[in-house]
């Protein structure tokens, strides 16, 4: 079917018309702001907030050990906080994975309306406000909260139990908030699992553990990796969970960013911290992307 010149130019016009709004929106309010943030991270912080337009690599220097001058000593506190954030994010990934993996098999083993109902029930908390979900854990974990009161009334403990403001409480909150992100990709993967391979493995005399380790885990790896990436990223940059469940005792990079923007007004340093998190995001996603396209390439072979 040969297209005439008139239709081709009309098509082009429609295409431009349809794409223009989002292109302009993303260009002006997404790409340019990100670009400005990159520029800011190399500028000198102004004395009263704002920036001085001078080349100033020491925002990154403060982070990775490259002091401003001979009088300044490198303080590894920011690096420590970043490493703690990494640790919390990794523990969150582990927690959500341990919870979601068996649950995905549980849901996949169901049939009919019961399965739809349970899937609905698992998906629903995903839409609950994040603050409300964190708030629930404040009620559970604080010294006058549900757990402590319950344990006291049974006589198991005498002193009120304070579980708040520890790495543990932050991880619990993060796991609770991010579990749906892990469950859904794993479930999508488990749902498509080819059980004939599992049966073959058992028929050939493999033990349960061998079947799990050599057959089921590799087959569900894409779901595990996908879920881990999309749990890790929001966990790493989170500041709401640590500020509510971690108080002043647990600091994450997100809290540092928030503070440098809204309190100490050192915007360039905050921008540098944000870019450090972005670097992780970019690396993780390009790894994930190249892995995905590689496995697609194998599929068509």
């Amino acid at each position, binding site marked *: 079917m040969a297209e005439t010149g008139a239709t081709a130019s009309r098509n082009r016009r*429609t*295409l431009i018309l*349809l*794409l223009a*709004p*989002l292109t302009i929106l*993303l260009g002006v*309010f*997404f790409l*340019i*702001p990100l670009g*400005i*943030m990159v520029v*800011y991270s190399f500028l000198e912080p102004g004395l009263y907030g704002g920036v001085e337009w001078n080349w100033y690599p020491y925002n990154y220097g403060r982070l990775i050990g490259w002091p401003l001058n001979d009088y300044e000593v490198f303080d590894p506190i920011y690096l420590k906080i970043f490493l703690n954030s990494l640790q919390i994010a990794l523990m969150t990934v582990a927690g959500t994975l341990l*919870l979601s993996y*068996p649950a995905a*098999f*549980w849901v996949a*083993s169901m049939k009919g309306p019961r399965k*739809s109902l*349970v899937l609905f029930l*698992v*998906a*629903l*908390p*995903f*839409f*609950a*406000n*994040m*603050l*409300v*979900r964190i*708030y*629930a*854990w*404040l*009620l559970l974990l604080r010294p*006058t909260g*549900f757990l402590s*009161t319950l344990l006291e009334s049974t006589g198991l403990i005498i002193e009120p139990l304070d579980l708040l403001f520890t790495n543990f409480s932050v991880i619990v909150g993060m796991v*609770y908030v991010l*579990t749906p992100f892990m469950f859904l990709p794993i479930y999508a993967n488990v749902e498509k699992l080819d*059980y004939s391979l599992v049966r073959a493995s*058992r028929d050939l005399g493999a033990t349960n553990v061998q079947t799990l380790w050599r057959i089921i885990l590799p087959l569900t790896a894409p779901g595990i990796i996908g879920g881990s990436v999309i749990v890790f*990223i*929001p966990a790493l940059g*989170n500041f*709401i969970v640590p500020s*509510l469940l971690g108080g002043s005792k647990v600091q994450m990079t997100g809290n540092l960013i*928030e503070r440098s*923007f*809204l309190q100490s007004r050192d915007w360039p340093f*905050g*921008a540098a911290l*944000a870019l450090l*998190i*972005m670097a992780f*995001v970019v690396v993780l*996603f390009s790894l994930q992307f190249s892995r995905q396209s590689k496995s697609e390439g194998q599929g068509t072979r």
Partner: protein
Amino acid sequence: MFERIMSSKGWWRLFQAYGLVFLIFLYLPLALIFVYSFNANPINMAVWTEFTFDWYKTIFFGAGTAGSFDAAFTESPDRIFEVVRNSAIVALSASTISTVIGTATAIAIRRYDFVGKKVYQALLVLPMIVPDIVLGIALLIFFVGAGFELSLLTVIIGHTTFLSSYVFVVVSARLAGMDMSLERASADLGAGPLTTFRRVTLPQIMPGVVGGFLLAFIISLDDVVITYFIAGVGSQTLPLFILAMMRRGLRPQINALAILLLSFTFTVAAIGLYLRSRKS
């Protein structure tokens, strides 16, 4: 199938029990808020005194009208009304605009091929990948630098930017299953582009468009992090208000407010999930 994998009855039972534990883990914390929201004890929620609707009443009518709670335990209903109104304005405008923009983009991507399409598509999903906090501060720097006053408008702009990506993804999924030859047939039979869109394309993708709108609406309504950075003094939304309440100390009124918000979002989400299940 699974009975065979779980060779022994004991393992199978354990597996089922675990499933229940998982559901309890998901719902027990929320159920706790629900129960506490009816507890009259103004000092310690974990100690039950008696059943009351008063915390809900204080949200609508203020402290004086309900029970003996003094104003120290509650926020004024005017203030609550103001932040709810702000949230409604932001969520409705941002999700409406992003539904139009996201749908237009999805149709263009499905219908036409052009140079650099792959890269363009990657750009479209980028706002969903960038962490909220990065998006929030980037917008803050931009708005302040460009001389915008932080207001409901900046919040709407910020939400629309990343919500358009969500709508694009949802509508694209729907379009992927659509038969494009119908559009061509309609055009060949002499229908104009608008008629074709209204009578052929839109009816087919409607579940996706509605689903995208509902998703955008909920995300906008629930957003804390991005709004936190780009809302001004007079443009506090409901989640920011709840955050401020939580930081001042846990008062029982938060329970009632949280349950009202939760009931609303769950209803919207349930409609969305129902529409999606009907579509497939």
